[in-house]
């Protein structure tokens, strides 16, 4: 039998130590959400409503946008904010429903790994994009009109 030293003392919460990640995740969901409304609504308006809408999207359309640093930064922010927001939201949902800790671990790893891979891929795509790549002659008319003749 163990003796309780001070049986009447109230339960003391151990003082939380270190960063409260759960709180910062909660803050991030809200802060990124406010910025994402602007970025995504702008993205959808320019791509889906203005001009011809989705029928106007092709390589030349993307080249026209990414020739400007404005849309490069826009898409870069949208890429990072949305994927981290989405992955953290998926983590919440996995924590709510996964039946075993091991399954939760596997699912959380899958979500964050795919988000990380796509953040790297999307960032590389934006920064290595060439609006006027050298192409075979039959593809030349797919390039934007501002490309010099090849």
């Amino acid at each position, binding site marked *: 039998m163990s003796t309780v030293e001070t049986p009447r003392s109230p339960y003391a919460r151990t003082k939380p130590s270190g960063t409260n990640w759960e709180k910062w995740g909660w803050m991030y969901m809200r802060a990124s*959400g406010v910025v994402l409304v602007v970025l995504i*609504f702008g993205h*959808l308006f320019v791509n889906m409503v203005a001009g011809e*809408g989705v029928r106007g999207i*092709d390589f030349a359309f*993307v080249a026209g946008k990414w020739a400007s640093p404005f849309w490069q930064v826009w898409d870069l922010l949208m890429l990072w904010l949305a994927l981290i927001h989405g992955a953290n*939201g998926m983590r919440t949902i996995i924590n709510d429903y996964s039946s075993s800790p091991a399954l939760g671990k596997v699912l959380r790893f899958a979500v964050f790994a795919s988000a990380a891979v*796509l953040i790297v891929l999307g960032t590389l795509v934006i920064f290595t994009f060439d609006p006027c790549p050298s192409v075979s002659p039959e*593809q030349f008319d797919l390039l934007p009109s501002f490309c010099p003749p090849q």
Partner: protein
Amino acid sequence: MSAVTAPRSEKKPRPGGTLYRGYTGMWSWVLHRITGVAIFFFLLVHILDTALVRVSPEAYNAIMSSYKTPLMGLGEIALVGAIVFHALNGLRIILVDFWSKGVKYQRAMFWVVLGLWVVLMAGFLPRQIINIVLEVNGQ
């Protein structure tokens, strides 16, 4: 001191209706969850299809032409509907959390979300429906 008044009851009061259980509070949460997951999976695919601009103009235009078929056109309506709801309801969640009157007006704000959703979708649908019709006619 302000007295605690009884919460405004729904038309047919049943036990259990709180901010998150039953009624609009729960359904907005369910919809927010489902739309969040749907957008996440769309985004994974969307970054892969956009990455084809680095393969060749031909490859990118080929994947984009599959986004222009009538069936995908309907899918895009569902996607835009989901993201518009998630965005507007997300702002409502933020107001519930940070605005001193947020909890009091959470239900009213839900109807505002639905109203704005209808307005924004009405702004998007004409362009999209014209495009779907043009595709169906092969134009």
